[in-house]
């Protein structure tokens, strides 16, 4: 589904990704872990097409197509979703209106019929339950005045509504208490299907107790320094990042 080859990227002329190679098949969950500044959030943002980053080398294909050539909205329409580490507040646009616009834009891009507000409300009802959110949240402006936990749940709600093929969770666990973490993880797990993949970017192993990965990759200094199964996350938790980054001397 996703093929990343020797990906290099810079921000303000500083190289952050120094050659990442990773392939994600349909149905797989990959965890990308690493210390602060290792480049793991950059990887997530580059995949979503954040304009602040410049890709300087390598390639990324998604379902055989060149992902890097696509505008961010086209990536989303093709099925890529990034759950933001810091969801953006948009005062003046209601959550419901924003979600329905996104939902319909994606449907339109796929040649499907748009849904009217009443039918959309039905779609929403089920998804709200999934992330334990109330209807009232739909009428509030996007993320405006939301608590940290509400913002993260709202990201998962958007993901549940848009049903992406590839979901990238960028430190969705940061700042969450254990109850909120469980809600978020349940939401993600409910969406797992053989034709959908997930990349979980996280600093801590904690989230991986709830979203169990098939593969774990450790990023340090803009490179993947170690890959393994889910047990690698536990090993990291026990031994710390120095255990892998120290070995390469690439700690950032």
């Amino acid at each position, binding site marked *: 589904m996703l093929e990343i080859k020797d990906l290099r990227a810079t921000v303000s002329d500083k190289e952050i990704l120094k050659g990442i190679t990773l392939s994600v098949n349909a149905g797989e969950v990959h965890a990308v872990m690493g210390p602060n500044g290792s480049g793991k959030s950059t990887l997530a943002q580059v995949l979503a097409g954040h304009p602040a980053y410049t890709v300087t080398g390598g390639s990324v294909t998604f379902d055989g197509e060149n992902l890097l050539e696509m*505008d961010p*909205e086209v990536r*989303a329409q093709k099925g890529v979703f990034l759950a933001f580490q810091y969801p*953006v507040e948009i005062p*003046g*646009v209601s959550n419901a209106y924003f979600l329905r*616009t*996104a939902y319909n*834009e994606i449907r339109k*891009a796929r040649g499907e019929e748009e849904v009217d507000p009443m039918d959309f409300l039905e779609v929403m009802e089920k998804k709200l339950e999934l992330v334990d959110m109330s209807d009232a949240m739909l009428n509030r402006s996007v993320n405006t005045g939301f608590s940290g936990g509400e913002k993260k749940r709202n990201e998962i709600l958007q993901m549940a509504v848009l049903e992406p093929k590839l979901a990238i969770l960028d430190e969705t666990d940061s700042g969450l208490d254990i109850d909120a973490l469980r809600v978020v993880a349940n939401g993600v797990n409910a969406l797992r299907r053989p034709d959908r993949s997930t990349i979980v970017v996280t600093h801590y192993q904690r989230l991986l107790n709830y979203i169990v990965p098939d593969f774990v990759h450790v990023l340090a200094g803009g490179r993947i320094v170690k890959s393994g199964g889910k047990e690698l996350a536990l090993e990291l938790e026990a031994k710390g990042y120095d255990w892998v980054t120290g070995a390469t001397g690439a700690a950032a």
Partner: protein
Amino acid sequence: MSTSAYLEDVNAATQRKDEPRWLRELRARGAAHFARVGFPTTRDEDWKYTSAAPIAELDVRAIQEPGGEVIAAQLEPYTFGQSDWTTLVFVNGRYDSELSTGGAPAAGVRVLPLGEAREEMPEVVEGLLGSICTVEQSAFVALNAALHSDGAVIHLARDAYAAQPIHLLFVSDALSAKGASHPRILIVAEPNAKATVIESYVALGEATYLTNSVTEISLGDGATIAHYKIQRESPRAYHVATVDARQGRDSHFVSFSFATGAALSRTNIWTVLGGEGCGATLNGLYMADGEQHVDHQTRIEHQKESCYSREVYRGVLDGTAHGVFNGKVYVHPEAQKTDGKQENHTLLLSPRAVIDTKPQLEIFADDVKCTHGATVGRIDATSLFYMKSRGVGAGRARQLLTYAFAADVLEQIELEPLRTGLEELTLARFTGGDR
């Protein structure tokens, strides 16, 4: 500069013999002041960023006779779906009794066209018209004093409460071409009275004309007036409006100015907090594109202790539109404990759009809290990326973010049907109507 057409009209108006003496004197005072100062130039501090030359050079004549071909159905888009509001309709500046609807909104509330008001409540009209907004205030006020021929008077007796809003709807159709109207409005709220007044200026067609209105508002002790001004004039029209309020103790004045029309518009909103414990809330939204010029000048004068003022103006400018905002807050030495806040935020959608924004705080008391802030910006890149990352195309995302920027200040409007109506108008402007 050719002001001859105006001067001819002014001379004719001062020759009228059939009017009461006080009115003839008012016209004469207006005529004299206008003849003395003429139209302002950009050398005048208050007109630095707005040239009145296009108005001075306009060949427009005061509209003398009622006329127009407006039918009720054409007004529907402008009534916010509210048939039970007391609505006075003016076609090309003249009162039209057939299009007007609704009677007096409540006991103690009188709503009359200016001509009838002069007959039925001479004590109110004679005593106050021209006393709040005096001819010396500006050339345009003087011109209005000399030339005004129609308008409305709203009088609220002590403790009267107009539960339904009062709508003064000024419509200009094709027959307004080359005409000038000078609407005059007087709103008098005796102590503890309360009302909501909407003053709309709309156009059927794209004629070139001048509207030069003056609205005087007197708020007695404890009175509350919400005044909404909606400016949707023809794209070729010129619009100058002055709203001038005087506030008694513990009174509340709420003003909202919505401006999207006219080739050139200038709106002055002034209030004097003349008693202790009053509040003034002045908000507004201006949206302009093409070569439109839209200017708002607000003046809040804190004369007494313990008053507050709140002000938020937002603007969205596209094309080569030019916006001007000047927010003056004047705090007199005895106006201690003044609490004032002012904000002006403008979104520029095009690199050639221009905003001149000037907060102007003059504070002569030492125990006050006054803040102001102005921002000028473009669409936020982070918000744009967030929307795009959800599949929303760049164009649509920009539309939504632009709407959201503008709608932020519309939320301040307490009158629900008006708020919804203006939100829909604003959304349609930026998204082509889909909601």
